């Protein structure tokens, strides 16, 4: 009998087998680590997308109803209602492959083959004008050669440099405004009780 000690090991758990690791280790990184063997073309992807994805994401990735938009939105990031898509916002193509393989189609995840995910990823590149050739074939080999347009626009967390964070110190306690405060905006959604009244709104969405 002895007490706990951070440095020591406990001899708990069992070795993970190679096949077990392979079964779960499906993540893909921007440098291509994790990409499986295989390939798929834009044309193949179009068929797959129409069959498995378009009901939610629209034939051209424009999004049906409130389901996510996957294509378009280029040059909207500084506008009033930016549209963040694979083409307009996402920094890395690896994320598309990784995410579609792990989580799509929504409600039937892990049902696509590796080749099918290559084809769908190729088609999403096509819908976003990153490739223009319907015969383009995406493969493990050419994958890391492709870059998404917005990659350079991601920066490190610099919240600390914002004015209100940079100037620490005791905040003002009395007469902090020259004039009495006046109301500049009222809540737009007046009835928050779900089911009672009008649930429709022009409001934003949650991510």
């Amino acid at each position, binding site marked *: 009998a002895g007490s706990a000690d951070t440095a020591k090991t*406990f001899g708990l758990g069992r070795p993970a087998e190679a096949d077990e690791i392979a079964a779960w280790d499906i*993540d893909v990184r921007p440098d291509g680590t994790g990409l499986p063997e295989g390939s798929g073309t834009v044309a193949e992807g179009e068929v797959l997308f129409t069959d498995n994805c378009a009901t939610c994401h629209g034939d051209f990735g424009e999004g049906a109803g409130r389901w996510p938009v996957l294509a378009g939105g280029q040059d909207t*990031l500084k506008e009033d209602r930016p549209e963040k898509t694979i083409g307009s916002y996402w920094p890395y193509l690896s994320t598309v492959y990784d995410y579609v393989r792990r989580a799509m189609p929504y409600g039937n995840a892990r049902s696509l083959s590796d080749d099918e995910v290559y084809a769908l990823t190729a088609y999403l590149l096509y819908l976003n004008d990153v490739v223009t050739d319907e015969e383009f074939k995406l493969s493990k080999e050419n994958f890391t050669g492709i870059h998404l347009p917005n990659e350079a626009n991601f920066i490190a967390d610099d919240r600390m440099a914002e004015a*209100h964070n940079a100037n620490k110190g005791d905040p003002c306690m009395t007469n902090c405004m020259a004039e009495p405060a006046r109301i500049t*905006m009222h*809540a737009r959604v007046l009835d928050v009780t779900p089911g009672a009244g009008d649930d429709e709104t022009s409001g934003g969405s949650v*991510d």
Partner: protein
Amino acid sequence: AAAGAGLVSRSALAGDPLITEVQDWNRYLGDSVQAAPYGKPSEFEAHVVRRDVEWLTASPESSVNFTPLHELDGIITPNGLCFERHHGGVAQINPADHRLMIHGLVDKPLVFTMEDLKRFPRENRVYFLECAANSGMEWRGAQLNGCQYTHGMIHCVVYTGVPLKYLLNEAGVKTSGKWLLAEGADASAMTRSIPMEKALDDCLVAFKMNGEALRPEQGYPVRLVVPGWEGNMWVKWLRRLEVGDQPWEQREETSKYTDLLANGKARRFTWVMDVKSVITSPSPQAPVAHGKGPLVISGVAWSGNGTVQRVDVSIDGGRNWKTARIDGPSLSKAMHRFYLDIDWDGSPLLLQSRAMDEQGFVQPTKNELRLARGDNSIYHNNGIQTWHVKADGTVENVEVA
């Protein structure tokens, strides 16, 4: 028997009949100790529930509901009321069927059962969990009338779990291992990259909340606890931990949970939840019913940087402030409860609270945030909230200048 003999005269007495007449619950037996092996709230509390906002999301399985902060007090959120956020619905997993794998840049890739995890030394810690999108709908301006909706993507419970460092140590992290990928077993197979420094600092692999097993919607049988950092990283139904030398740039750290600025640039890896507070009562869903006189102003404050040092409250929209009373335990990266007890004169109020944390960070105004980041950010809105209490006691969500 002489049932009622004493009552005939009583009912004719002056005063409140609820006092002068014998009530049923004072006469007849209530439920027995066998009635509720697992108890639930009174029928008179049926309105105290998590609520969602249907128009927010396309699918209720990838959606959010909100903690009814306006009905709660103290710093602990009851398990049944902790807000839910999931991306593929609530996975229902038999703990006997659950596995946790550690692999990647480690000496010995390992698989743990739940029983294995419960043999490591445990810790108990109180932490808030806030979604980075909490108050996100308010970024462009006052929108929702109720702190349940404006601030309800937060909860605070006691976790029991194993320090993540014990598990990593058991597998033996190679010196090249600088990042950790955490993955869930649910239908979204949720993933996030976590820097090794945080993983080895205060993260827990937790199997209990508030004393009992995690709730299914909070990741039963096991979740990651990443104290002070955005809720999306607290991977639920945790099944896999991969050690690597670089981050994975997963969908939830690129497409989502990145912060778009006015200049088109976007911040990534914005992990810490900034110092923040909100008045929970009075608030739009908790109006003042009693008129002027003694009024308890109550709220919660928290910071991903540690403890909350001070909360100031203004009743005039931020012109003048009074330091509130923080009551109950003040624990690092946990919710804090504050009160300001006032004598209300019945005139309209513009209520605000402003928290300051142990590192000296002060909660900014919403306008300060917009000035720094533009109108298109979604996450990390820790701006000061204003409630307009009207003379009739009703309360509205407003913005002031």
